[in-house]
């Protein structure tokens, strides 16, 4: 697995670019540990100051240092995205593997269920959740809900990989040579499945952060925790656009776009690397 990453870094421009962007974002998020101001206090610095050497990204109308707010926002949004991705990974792996290996009616039932959740538009459902939960909606609960609703895309992918692996020649060979199912799964199949899980995780993190930003901007989450979305929410509440406090929404937007593009590049280049046919097309070009 590490050899793959090293090769990709060296020869695949998209992967390298994605890695650079993502690392940069991660560093900024990690800097939140050094923030001189606690994340949820307001009016700790003079409000509405333009960017300067003292306040790198200026200050917000709520009297917070934009730069440090952004570090917290990034950290929280990333953590959130990662937790959702984790939960939905588990579910999609479960569904995908079971459906792929068992086949038959189990497969058909699971795929019917899968397609159902694919089609149902999530946003209204999440809004409904907020409607009935209001102030009781916290990040953990939201992460759980989104994780439980976000697995269909990837489950299908994992299922098709499982199906193709099941029928590949080296599997029948391993079965005939007496390897236990667990051994087959770990030694033969995992090397194929892992890169796909990696690629889909990046895509899933993007999706969940995107949804978080959308919900927070509308005020449908806990707006007192700094995240990218809640920063934009407060910026809108204080009419930052009209009052010209542009750094308040440009900074989080810029960083979140970097995150999205970075993760996306990583997942796309990993996907292309896995697909053997694209490799042949690149050779000798």
């Amino acid at each position, binding site marked *: 697995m590490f050899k793959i990453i090293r090769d990709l870094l060296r020869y695949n421009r998209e992967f390298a670019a994605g890695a650079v962007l993502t690392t940069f974002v991660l560093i900024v998020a990690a800097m939140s540990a050094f923030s001189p101001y606690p994340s949820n206090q307001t009016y700790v610095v003079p409000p509405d100051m333009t960017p300067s050497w003292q306040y790198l990204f200026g200050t917000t109308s709520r009297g917070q240092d934009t730069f440090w707010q952004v570090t917290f926002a990034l950290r929280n949004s990333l953590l959130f995205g990662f937790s959702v991705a984790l939960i939905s990974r588990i579910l999609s792996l479960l569904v995908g593997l079971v459906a792929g290996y068992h086949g038959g009616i189990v497969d058909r039932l699971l795929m019917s269920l899968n397609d159902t959740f694919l*089609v*149902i*538009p999530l946003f209204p459902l999440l*809004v409904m*959740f907020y*409607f*009935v939960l209001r102030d009781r909606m916290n990040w953990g609960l939201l992460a759980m809900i989104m994780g439980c609703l976000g697995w269909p895309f990837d489950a299908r992918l994992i299922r098709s990989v499982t199906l193709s692996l099941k029928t590949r020649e080296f599997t029948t060979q391993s079965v005939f040579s007496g390897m236990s199912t667990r051994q087959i799964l770990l030694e033969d199949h995992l090397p194929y499945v892992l890169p796909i899980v990696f690629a889909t995780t990046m895509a899933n993190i993007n999706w969940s952060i*995107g949804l978080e930003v959308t919900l927070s901007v509308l005020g*449908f989450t806990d707006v007192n925790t700094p995240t990218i979305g809640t920063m934009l929410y407060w910026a809108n509440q204080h009419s930052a656009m009209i009052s010209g406090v542009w750094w308040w929404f440009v900074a989080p937007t810029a960083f979140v776009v970097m995150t999205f593009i970075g993760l996306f590049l990583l997942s796309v280049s990993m996907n292309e690397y896995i697909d053997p046919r694209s490799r042949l097309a690149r050779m000798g070009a």
Partner: protein
Amino acid sequence: MRSFLLHILRRFRQFVLVVFIGINLTFLITHITPIDPVEASVSAMTAFSSSQPEAVALMRKSLKELYGLQGTLFDQYIVFWKRILAADFGPSLSVFPTLVSTLIGRALPWTVGLLLVATLLSWILGNFIGGLAGYYRNNRFLKFAGIIFMALHPVPYYIVAFILLIVFGYLWPILPLTGAYEMNMQPGYRLDFILSVIRHSLLPVLSLVLVGIGGWFLGMRSLVSNIVTEDYVVYAELGGVSRAKILTSYVMRNALIPQVTGLAIVLGSIFNGAIITEVVFGYPGLGRLLVSGVERGDYSLVLGVTTVSIVTVSAAVFLIDLLYPFLDPRIQAG
């Protein structure tokens, strides 16, 4: 013919299943949570003003009846389904006594229109340019276009809409930012009205297309670069079939088949994107209705919009599934 009918039946069964599960999910969310919709509405309505306790109690009682929350859970379930099947969502709380169905009826065409135009545009453009990019792998323009699409595609709909709002709201205000048509204009089949509608839809459509086109582009590009190695394409090249014919009838036509399936799969998320974009641009569709319903504690409205969303998307997916056998003759063989 028989296998075609079987196909329709199978897809219809899936359609019913999706609607059933979706609406049951909605029921679960609203009836199994600690806070019931009555409380949610009451707290939203009494949030900014004080009310007398008797008035609040009366409100609770009538809301309970309105929302069908009397009796046991089972009774509520029956009432819930009866109402939905009759498309009866009751009156809207925030715009009393206008029926929720009326409000939705006014908003739905705008959402559907936006969705249709934006989806078709991004699908057609994305697939066409992506197909060319997959075939002519060394063309610089296509590579450049690919990079732009790749940069836009992962950005969530809200952020792109937001950025467009900033650009066209403050930097270059040449397009209208809200509404579906000029305020105070009378709707009708007149040229000036139609032009106004088009002008007002430009930004929302642009926002949706910018995000969506990348997905189709990337998918088509990789599909085409794989199809190009298929036996029948290689054979057609050996046969000296004209380049244009190969590109259209052999490569693109075959690549479009999985892209149609893809359309059915992502329609749910495009719908999400559409209603979010509506909120940003103040477009009078389901999105704005939904958000205002939540802010004002209008449970009936929120329930109605959610239900209609589920049915609309499922119906659209069903229709796309119906198209499938016409595109791929292999399906008819079973």
